[in-house]
């Protein structure tokens, strides 16, 4: 076994240890905290790179490098439950991405969080997050994955609620945890079901793992209660966990609210890595998701499995609907948040229609350019003195040139600007695969519409933020932006925006470079990435026309956005949006996110609150009432007994006593105390006795 496989656990353990040290060190020590966190991540990146190199050279039996290390964790019924980690291309790619992007974001945070008094706690949580996320990535057991997955959820909760004194942040944190936990319950059930069916939770275990052929063959033949294959049912339950974590419809509501956390957190957790964990999960259990009786029989023309069809539809719908919402938002981070939801939809769709490599390629490119965009927005927010509303920005390109340039690169990558940006290649692959999907063409159309919208809303955002003239200084404080963080300087309101320090701009430049270069690893003519992940690209036929088509769509979106928002800039912050003037009704619907939150508030949450009250009522008055009734009856009976005692038994007893007392009184008269009387009685009695003895016997 390769030594790096044996020591793969170090990669998540390093940040975990860093988090532990930061947590227990008594005096908050800023430099120590930051250097521990960044050092552990940097070292993790070096190790990941070695792991990656190890996967390049050798090939396993199925043409793909895969080595595992399993160990015993606990025992029940005489059997060991094993956990373990795995090194394969999927792991290696994710490891490199998470440690690399993570390191950059950690470095960026030094600048961004410089003035926060809980600086060390922030780095503690970030390191803990990194440990959890890297655990998810290396896990070779669904249970270990779930454990890390929940740890990630916890840190997400802690970091969203980092500024816990703000009620909105505390509420958003709770919402995020609970919404994702709904999905996690599905994942838990899927996990225990899988365990029961396959007898193991190890993914790969030398032929005995639950993702390996033997187990799959066994499971696909069985049917669950509703007639679907057991693999489908398990796959869908696991997918539910991914839906929660990756913010897919209908559990996407937490992700935009999660923007309450510090912006580097949004970049790392709620854009680049954690939310992608759902996509990664589906990619990891892909053999389970894709298996059908047809595919096992070697019949490649059969329909895709039900589970994958569901994944595709959910992804496509999410991609489209989230993009529409993003069009009408004004908070710079919320636009990016909905964009993230939408892009995660693309990844899911990519997995559904094209397989692991296509979905993962978009995951990786997206991680870089979306981290770039979020960090860019953090730089903007930092420069604009904690303002987030794009209506109050404008003209920032002359104040913040580096931020502007890097942001523009990120935006073009996200929009899918042809040839030079990574987003183009990865999105195009998904659309290409969707075009060839045998079930329906609708995901393809939804994907194209989403691409148009993406180009449009990103142009709108960039136009409003960086072009025109700065509107923030002239606005009046009566119209404060949605959420000003750190409740800091309102006096800085009128100050001019400024460029961020180098500790923040350098990571931006590095990410921007990646956002451009990564695309060339996965072009249809040189699919290095796809090949590495073990997927041999189908024919490149039909690629070029499709590419031209998608280019036209992107240009249409860019042009429309430019025409509506940059050509004629808004003069003041209070002006209504151009689209709002045209169709106020639809715009309001989009701005209010299709009223998802309100609908949940009115249905699920209200129902739960009602049911809780009903349970309490049941407890206090129905069950409690029954107990009270029994006790009242008992007490009543006791009173009855008491009455009987006092008025029947006691009275009779008293009457009896009275008789006895009277008798005693009478008798006591005999006790005169005079000896003569006694002797008289004795004498008479003696005489009577003698008389009786003499004559009585004979008679």
């Amino acid at each position, binding site marked *: 076994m390769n030594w790096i496989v044996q020591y793969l656990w170090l990669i998540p353990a390093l940040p975990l240890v860093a988090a532990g040290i930061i947590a227990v060190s008594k005096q908050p020590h800023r430099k120590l905290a930051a250097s521990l966190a960044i050092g552990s991540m940097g070292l993790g990146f070096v190790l990941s790179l070695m792991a990656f190199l190890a996967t390049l050279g050798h090939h396993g039996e199925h043409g793909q490098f895969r080595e595992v290390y399993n160990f015993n*964790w606990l025992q029940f019924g005489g059997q060991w439950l094993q956990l373990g980690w795995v090194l394969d291309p999927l792991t290696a790619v994710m490891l490199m991405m998470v440690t690399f992007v993570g390191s950059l974001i950690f470095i960026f945070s030094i600048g961004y969080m410089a003035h926060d008094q809980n600086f060390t706690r922030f780095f503690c949580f970030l390191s803990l997050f990194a440990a959890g996320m890297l655990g998810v990535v290396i896990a070779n057991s669904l249970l270990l994955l779930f454990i890390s997955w929940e740890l990630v959820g916890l840190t997400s909760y802690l970091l969203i609620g980092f500024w816990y004194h703000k009620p909105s942040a505390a509420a958003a944190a709770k919402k995020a945890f609970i919404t994702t936990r709904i999905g996690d319950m599905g994942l838990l059930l899927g996990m225990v079901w899988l365990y*029961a069916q396959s007898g193991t939770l190890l993914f790969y275990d030398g032929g005995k793992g639950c993702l390996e052929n033997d187990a799959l063959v066994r499971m696909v033949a069985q049917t669950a209660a509703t007639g679907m294959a057991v693999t489908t049912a398990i796959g869908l339950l696991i997918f539910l966990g991914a839906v929660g974590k990756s913010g897919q419809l209908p559990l996407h509501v937490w992700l935009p609210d999660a923007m309450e956390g510090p912006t580097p957190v949004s970049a790392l957790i709620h854009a680049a890595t954690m939310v992608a964990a759902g996509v990664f999960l589906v990619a990891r259990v892909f053999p389970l998701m894709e298996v059908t009786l047809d595919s096992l029989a070697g019949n490649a023309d059969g329909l895709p499995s039900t589970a994958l069809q569901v994944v595709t539809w959910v992804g496509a719908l999410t991609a489209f609907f989230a993009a529409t919402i993003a069009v009408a938002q004004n908070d710079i981070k919320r636009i990016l948040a909905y964009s993230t939801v939408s892009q995660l939809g693309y990844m899911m769709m990519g997995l559904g229609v094209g397989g692991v490599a296509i979905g993962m390629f978009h995951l990786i490119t997206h991680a870089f350019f979306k981290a770039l965009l979020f960090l860019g927005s953090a730089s903007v927010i930092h420069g604009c003195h904690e303002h987030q509303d794009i209506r109050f920005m404008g003209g920032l390109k002359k104040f913040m040139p580096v931020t502007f340039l890097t942001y523009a690169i990120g935006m073009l990558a996200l929009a899918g600007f042809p040839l030079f940006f990574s987003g183009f290649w990865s999105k195009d692959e998904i659309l290409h695969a969707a075009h060839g999907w045998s079930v329906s063409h609708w995901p393809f159309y939804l994907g194209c519409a989403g691409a148009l919208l993406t180009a449009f809303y990103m142009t709108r955002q960039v136009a409003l933020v960086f072009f025109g003239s700065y509107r923030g200084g002239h606005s009046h404080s009566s119209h404060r932006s949605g959420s000003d963080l750190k409740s800091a300087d309102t006096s800085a309101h009128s100050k001019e925006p400024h460029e961020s320090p180098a500790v923040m701009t350098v990571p931006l430049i590095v990410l921007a470079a990646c956002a451009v270069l990564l695309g060339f690893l996965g072009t249809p003519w040189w699919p290095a990435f796809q090949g590495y992940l073990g997927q041999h690209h189908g024919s490149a036929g039909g690629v070029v026309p499709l590419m031209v088509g998608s280019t036209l769509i992107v240009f249409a979106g860019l042009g429309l956005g430019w025409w509506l928002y940059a050509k004629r800039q808004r003069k003041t912050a209070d002006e209504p949006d151009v689209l709002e003037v045209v169709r106020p009704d639809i715009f309001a619907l989009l701005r209010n996110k299709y009223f998802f939150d309100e609908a949940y508030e009115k249905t699920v949450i209200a129902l*739960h609150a009602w049911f809780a009250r009903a349970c309490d009522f049941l407890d206090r008055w129905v069950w409690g009432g029954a107990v009270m009734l029994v006790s009242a009856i008992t007490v009543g009976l006791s009173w009855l007994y008491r009455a009987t005692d006092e008025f029947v038994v006691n009275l009779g007893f008293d009457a009896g006593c009275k008789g006895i007392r009277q008798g005693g009184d009478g008798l006591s008269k005999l006790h005169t105390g005079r000896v003569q009387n006694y002797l008289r009685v004795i004498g008479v009695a003696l005489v009577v006795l003698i008389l009786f003895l003499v004559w009585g016997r004979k008679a």
Partner: protein
Amino acid sequence: MNGFPWLTVLTLVPLIGGVLVVGMGGQKQLARKLTLGLSLLSLGIALLIWKNFDAASGDLQFSERLDWVKSLGIQYHLGIDGLGLLMLLLTAIVTPLSLMAFWHNHDRSHIFGALVLWLQAGLFGTFTALNFFHWFIFWELGLIPAFFLVKFWGGPNRGPAATQFFVYTMVGSIGLLLAFLALRLATGSFDFIELAAMAKRGEISVKLGDALGWKSLSYSTLALLVFGLAFLGFAVKVPVIPFHTWLPVAYSEAPSPVTMLLTGVMSKMGVYGFLRILLPIFPEQVRLVLTPLLWLAVLTIVLSACAAFAQRDLKRMLAYSSINHLGYCLLAMFAAAGAATMVNQPELQKAAALNGVLLQMFNHGLTASVLFLFVTLLEKRSGGLRGLDDFGGIRKVVPVFTGLMGISLFSSLGLPGLNGFVGEFLVFKGAFPLAPWTTAVATIGLLVTAVFLLTLIQRVFCGPLNEKWAKLPDLTASELWLVIPSTVLMFVVGIYPQLVLGVIDATVVKLVQQLNF
């Protein structure tokens, strides 16, 4: 170790210690120290027993058997297996914690100490006895000190609460007593092990029918009736909804150190009774009514979680949460008692479920008592206030308190890495294949638990600081020493659960064999 009556000694230490302490009204400081010392001595003995316990064997160990009243089948019969040992350890851990939580209260502290020691003796006796006669004495002996502890040191409604607690449990005990008298009459034995052996051979219901037969009453109905009486006794103790209404009242009115004992250990007596007595002696009857029992467990899980969400008093909320956690034990036990004919590897699933039950008992005992300890500390600072809406934003002034209580809350919520998760995972892992639908519905309980615990964190610790508490002191050094060992134990069990599972697995395997007939 052989021959020395360790278990008797373990029970006698607090029993006699209580007598000593109660007479020391003049020297309360000394009495207090002596009480703590005695409880630590018990902990030491319990640890010694653990050290000498053969975990590889599921048999009863440290057995003691003496004839007592031969003509009535009464023997003094003691012994522990993994289950008993786990309960002894839990009792020995929670008792000193409770005493230390009461440390700064000077109200008749010597009597308090004596009552706690007697309660501990009752618990030790219950968890070691294998003959109904003295088991029942200890079972009731545990109740009496608890009654006085609630009655003397409780909140404003302590009188009714204590009475309700006592009478409720007493009703259950009467059912239990009647059931065992019937068994004694039919089989001539009070011994749990003998009775279980008869049950495995299927003799119990026949003997019951022969001895107590009624004209029109079929044998199975009669056995079911006896089972129902015994069930009542344990169901009240656990509690199973709808026999639970005493619990929120008792837990919230009892002083928090006593609540720690009530929830930490006394609530386990019910589950212990199910495992040691009810399931082995009435396996057929359990299977007859398995489906209703399973749904009763789900009802317990879901209703208590939802009711917890509706509470505005922290102690009441945690009390319902306690019911909820024991509900998972019920679910897994009943699932494991089923016939499981259509399941892959039924023995393995049952072993997982029952391991989960035992682990969950231990975890809940630990976590719940620490949570009530935190409420005690909070009450001490706030002058008795403990409403959900009385605080707000106090994380700013008491960060260490928040962090440590947060860990316990997340342990209660079942976060992986902490103790609660492993037990719940095993419960679900085992119960799902055995009873898929009920287990699936039971996940609602897990979800709602997250909702109300996070609501607690949000309302009490987050948001803007309530200025009233701007001067709230954080944990002192001595308080830290009180909570840190338990917190560390939560991590240890969460990361290395084999520490506990290693002790109980052999017992569980044996129990699974017992339940298969």
